[in-house]
């Protein structure tokens, strides 16, 4: 491990990404950026959290994950996630339909991801592990909770500001101050939009392939998995208008299958406390059962990890995960030590009226 190199890398990438984000993209609303738990990363066992927190997918997200214990100083895990629905116009999607989508929630929240990570050597093996693992995944929220109860008051406030703007426009008066008021209120609505509460039911699936020697002709079938993640999210504070604290209780049931092996099952849960919009803290534990412990990693063992996530600015979030991973075939229980950045490009920057 080379801590200086690691810290240096984080500083360089943070600076670069901040520059890119500020030059190309507007601020991303609260809760739009999160640690990447795309299904592809989860299946590749490089996700910061094995139990995904339900979220609204951005139209386009890139993720880098760096393992602190790697000593080459560069991130080796990359992911792209796309939410196809939000790549095009939807004139039929009114505010009411968007806030209460019913079964359409599954379409609105559908996202597809692709991720890559280097192949790792099996403990004790002398075989050269060079090559890449590639994973693809999909996920969707079949049930997406309900909107925050404070939303109605903010929408009424925005409607009142719109009234004043229309009156001013009809009289030819300036609207600069009203426009700023409208933006403040709209951003407050966005903050609540990203913070749906109540029962949320997510499903996900994915598949990975190995490419030894980075040769396409050597492709080998890898693991596939399918899982369901029910969540209950509630506000942990009462009436104050500026209160955004939430608590998530999340469970996961996941079926995993390696080629020519029996299926294994993950059962676990995660709790997430988000005291404010910048910080979130979580703890997860997952038990893996079934399969064959002689040939499959992680069978009949636990993964327990804590995670801290901090929003550096509106476009960037930094996160770290530390804990104990599933047991390896040789019996060791690897340390989980991840540091990562998430950069959002979902709300595209270009303004082109009509």
């Amino acid at each position, binding site marked *: 491990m080379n801590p200086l190199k690691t810290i240096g890398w984080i500083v360089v990438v943070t600076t670069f990404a901040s520059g890119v984000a500020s030059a190309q993209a*507007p*601020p*991303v*609303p609260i*809760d*739009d950026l999160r640690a990447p738990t795309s299904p592809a990363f989860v299946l590749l066992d490089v996700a910061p959290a094995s139990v995904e927190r339900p979220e*609204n997918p*951005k*139209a386009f997200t890139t993720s880098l994950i760096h393992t602190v214990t790697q000593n080459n100083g560069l991130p080796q895990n990359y992911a792209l996630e796309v*939410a196809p629905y*939000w790549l095009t*116009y*939807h*004139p*039929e*999607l*009114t*505010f*009411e*339909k*968007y*806030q209460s989508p019913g079964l359409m929630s599954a379409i*609105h929240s559908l996202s597809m991801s692709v991720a890559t990570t280097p192949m790792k050597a099996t403990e004790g093996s002398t075989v050269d592990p060079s090559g890449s693992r590639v994973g693809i995944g999909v996920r969707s929220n079949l049930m997406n909770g309900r909107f925050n109860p404070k939303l109605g008051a903010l*929408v009424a406030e*925005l*409607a009142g500001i*719109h*009234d004043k*703007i*229309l009156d001013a*426009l*009809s009289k030819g008066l300036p*609207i*600069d101050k009203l*426009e700023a008021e*409208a*933006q*403040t*209120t*709209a*951003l407050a*609505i*966005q903050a609540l*939009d*990203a913070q749906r509460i109540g029962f949320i039911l997510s499903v996900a699936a994915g598949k990975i392939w190995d490419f030894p020697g980075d040769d396409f002709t050597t492709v080998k079938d890898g693991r596939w998995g399918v899982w369901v993640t029910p969540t209950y999210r509630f506000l942990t504070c009462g009436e104050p208008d500026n209160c955004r604290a939430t608590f998530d209780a999340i469970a996961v049931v996941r079926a995993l299958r390696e080629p020519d092996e029996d299926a294994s099952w993950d059962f676990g849960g995660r709790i997430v406390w988000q005291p404010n919009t910048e910080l979130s803290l979580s703890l997860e534990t997952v038990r893996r059962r079934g399969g064959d412990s002689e040939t499959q990693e992680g069978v009949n063992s636990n993964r327990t990890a804590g995670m801290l996530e901090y929003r550096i600015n509106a476009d960037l979030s930094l996160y770290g995960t530390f804990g104990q991973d599933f047991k390896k075939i040789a019996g060791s229980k690897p340390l989980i030590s991840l540091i990562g950045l998430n950069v959002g490009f*979902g*709300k*595209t*920057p*270009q*303004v*082109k*009226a*009509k």
Partner: protein
Amino acid sequence: MPEKVTTNDTYRVGNGDVFISLAIGEGQFGTSDVSIDGTRLVRSSGSIGGLRVGAGPRVKGKDLKVRSVVSDVSTMTDRMSVTYRLNGGQGTKSITAKGKVDKAGKMLIFETTFALS
């Protein structure tokens, strides 16, 4: 001053009543004024369904103007659209005006005028 999306179109009326509906899409929130030759018919937030503009012969030659203020309240997209649908005249006309804000939470003003002929 916010960006403005301006659209001009025509609609041929008949002898019957003319109606207009509008929908603000992309999950965004907006408020609209509908007026004819400068006289406001209605102001409403969200969608407007089947608003009677007037009898065809009476509104012929007038301008039907819709001004909408739409705010970016969605975390999912910066896109905005307003769809107008006119009927009661010679056929049904539906058009969609589209735009996009450059910063989260900003607003666009959509101004669409139908010359009723």
